[in-house]
């Protein structure tokens, strides 16, 4: 029976301009979105490769210099030129290492918040500065957002589904073939189910075939666990919209009314509900502007500066065996203090940061609780998360940088404090993030 239904559906659809329109347009959109996605990843990987190469070069050069000095026993005039000095290796100039949030398997599919939040930063002994590579982007471009696969899937594909499904039964009624259908020994529900199932498989097929083809062309690897999950999510999301079509078709309304109702549902799920959800979360838990936070940071800086010597004396008392007494070089005396102050500033900043983080986290949590009400939002969030471009992951950069800074400091600071310089073969042990 199904075979017959599918065959007739195909003969029917073959004649429809809308269907051929979809066949023409949808693969192009998917292709363009994946093209932009693959470019984004390529750009990211290029940045990472360049920075890693320059890091390697820097430390290799230092090692060679040091080796040369060790071999001919020469000395260096200025302390900041000495490649054995922990400050030179861990703090100044190009010293330090970059911490990256690596692209994930599905990164090409969703740009997420990558245009707003940085994905890497440089760590030195005192600094964990996220690098805003995109600081020069045109804010106007950020307003409208990226044309990524997530956009095509979440926003546009439902519209194609609606075009394919809004008049499955109503058109039969309007074309006068409805009576003919009801005279068949098959229930109306089965016919509706069969027709929609066929169209569902057709749409899904177009999407999957074009995704696979473009992914192969642009070198995007979808043959992994996340790719499998993606298949399930895409199928389920499209099924959701076909289900809505089925429900609307069961009512005995005309095609135009069906189109209105389905378009209304689209507007409801994609525009209305999300805007109400975000309005609710941001009104219940407003996040203050960073303007105050900036002045707060400066206040902390001033506070620590004014407490200067006092803080250092306290540190001396707490760490009696961790520094060198007596006649020490000037740079040592200055930087020994600076590290104590930097640590204090960082601690106090974290405290102040919490005042801003908490409302933001409450806002995010509330939005996350309301989000399941809108399947499109759920799918969008899922895709961003799998792409690793969601705000939570990008914000985790701070933590990762702090964690790595800890390792960095553990490696260099004890040596600096005891004024123990490095030997060239020790430079191989300089820590790297994520290894």
């Amino acid at each position, binding site marked *: 029976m199904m075979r017959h239904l599918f065959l007739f559906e195909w003969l029917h659809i073959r004649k429809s301009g809308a269907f051929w329109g979809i066949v023409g347009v949808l693969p192009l959109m998917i292709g363009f979105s994946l093209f932009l996605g693959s470019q984004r990843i390529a750009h990211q990987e290029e940045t990472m490769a360049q920075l890693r190469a320059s890091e390697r070069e820097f430390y290799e050069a230092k090692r060679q210099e040091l080796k040369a000095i060790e071999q001919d026993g020469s000395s260096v005039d200025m302390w900041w030129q000495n490649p054995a000095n922990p400050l030179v290796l861990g703090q100044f100039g190009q010293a330090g290492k970059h911490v990256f949030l690596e692209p994930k398997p599905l990164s090409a599919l969703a740009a997420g918040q990558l245009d707003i939040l940085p994905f890497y930063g440089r760590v030195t002994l005192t600094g964990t500065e996220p690098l805003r590579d995109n600081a020069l982007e045109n804010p106007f471009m950020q307003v409208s957002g990226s044309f990524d696969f997530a956009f095509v899937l979440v926003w546009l594909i439902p519209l194609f589904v609606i075009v394919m499904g809004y008049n499955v039964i109503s058109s039969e009624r309007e074309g006068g073939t409805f009576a003919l259908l009801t005279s068949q020994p098959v229930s109306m529900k089965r016919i509706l189910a069969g027709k929609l199932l066929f169209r569902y498989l057709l749409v899904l097929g177009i999407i999957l075939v074009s995704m696979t083809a473009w992914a192969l062309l642009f070198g995007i690897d979808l043959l992994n666990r996340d790719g499998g999950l993606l298949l399930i999510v895409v199928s389920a999301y499209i099924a959701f919209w076909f289900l809505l079509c089925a429900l609307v078709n069961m009512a005995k309304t005309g095609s135009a009314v069906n189109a209105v109702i389905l378009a209304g549902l689209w507007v409801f799920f994609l525009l209305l509900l999300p805007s109400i959800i*975000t309005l609710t979360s941001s*009104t219940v838990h407003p996040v203050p*502007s960073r303007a105050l936070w900036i002045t707060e940071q400066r206040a902390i800086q001033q506070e620590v500066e004014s407490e200067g010597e006092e803080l250092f004396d306290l540190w001396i008392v707490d760490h009696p065996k961790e520094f060198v007494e007596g006649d020490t070089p000037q740079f040592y005396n200055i930087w020994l203090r600076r590290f104590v102050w930097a640590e204090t500033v960082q601690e106090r900043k974290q405290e102040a940061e919490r005042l801003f983080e908490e409302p933001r986290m409450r806002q995010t949590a509330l939005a996350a609780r309301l989000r399941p009400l809108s399947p499109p939002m759920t799918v969008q*969030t899922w895709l961003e998360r799998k792409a690793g471009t969601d705000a939570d992951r990008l914000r985790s950069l701070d933590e990762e940088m702090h964690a790595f800074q800890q390792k960095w400091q553990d490696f260099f600071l004890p040596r600096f404090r005891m004024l123990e310089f490095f030997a060239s073969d020790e430079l191989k042990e300089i820590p790297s993030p994520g290894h």
Partner: protein
Amino acid sequence: MVISSIARNEVQRLIRDKVVTALGLLIILLIASSIATGVIYFRELEAQHQQAEQLARAQWENQGEKNPHSAAHYGTFAFQPVTVVSVFEPGVNRYTGVSLFLEGHRQNFAAHSLAEDKDTSRRFAELTPAFIFTYLFPLFIILAGYRSVTGERESGMYRFLKSQGIGRFQVIAGKTIGLWVVVLLIFLPFLLIGLALLLFTTPSGTDVWRFVLMATIWLLYFGVVANITIGVSALVNSSGTSMVLLLSLWILSSLLVPRLATNIASTLHPVPNTSEFLQAVQNDLMHGIDGHNPFSEHSLAFQDSVLAAHGVDDIADLPFNFRGLMLQEGEEFEKRIFDYHLGKIDAIHQRQNHFFSLSSLFSPTIAARLSSMSVAGTDMVAFRHFTASAEEFRIALMRELNMDLKMNAVGERAAGYTVDGSFFAQTISFTYERPEKVLLARSQLIPISLTMLWFLLSAIFLGFAARIQEEV
């Protein structure tokens, strides 16, 4: 006479239509609540930025005794102005940085946009009047008007009207006026709430103008949608076709073309990343005076020229502090370099925006949105006006500091020169003066004229649909 009764009839039909009424009321409700929450947020933001401004100034004034050039490195901040009009049209405000660090030797980028801290679902949809007008209102017009003519045809009413001697033109004109009246009925509450809000918050005349112009832009945009809706309804055979066609146009205009255009614009005119930019600046800075390095080639040349001009051999014999002069000279040089490189970035942005403006030939939505941002003063042009004023202040402040060093750090006071804390309270302070003119750049006229062009084209299209010969 006939036209007005058709129009009256159309209004009545729409008001009796439960779906249309319900959606109309929903839109009014959404507008009202978006304004209400927007105002609360605006108030908070305004208070925060004022407080931050005062704190920053206090921190500057209380930095204590120090060398003026240390103060230049210490720097101060300017904060993005908050305007009440942004409640209606936030424009790019959420995506531009809220603070600008003003220090010696360099121009910084505005940092910390509101979008960075917001929950990400905000990008999905943000309930502001501009959002409602861009997306929801046109849908409402389409819904109210898609079967204005096809419906009459399908019910047989059209034949009846024709037999009464009523022309196609009269039917369509009446329908159009009717739809217009309904649109105005729903827009009116927004106008009233908006004007009331403006009158209660700021007395600035410019803001009222901005609001009025913004409302005009939106009305023009609704006019475009209404004209196309009635025109399509008059030209096609069935309500279903009319609906599908109009919805497709809406999707193209408000969803597809804007995203495509921005992504193509940024692919065609890519912006260099920050590190490349800073590297380029650094390279150019090497070719000039470094205020901190008196031994660089350029600094020495400058020193020689100053010494020669004053007929002395040693900078100690100069009647002023040479370092102060050199810092100022360096500052001006650095400013030229930064201006040049930031100007290049600006030119790229403008090319992107220009491309985007022109893409409104395919999308009246883009034309309207860009125009509304322009007249609201929340577009990039307005933001650049702010950063330019802050930069003007920065350079003036630096001059003040350097001149103090130049004139007063002389003779015995030269070594270890400092100013006492009270000095900083007397330095110039920054308050951003918003421009009194509504439009600042010629480029802003492009989207506005394109909006008008769209209105004109849609009217011509409607006229064409009304005049076409037909068989009934």
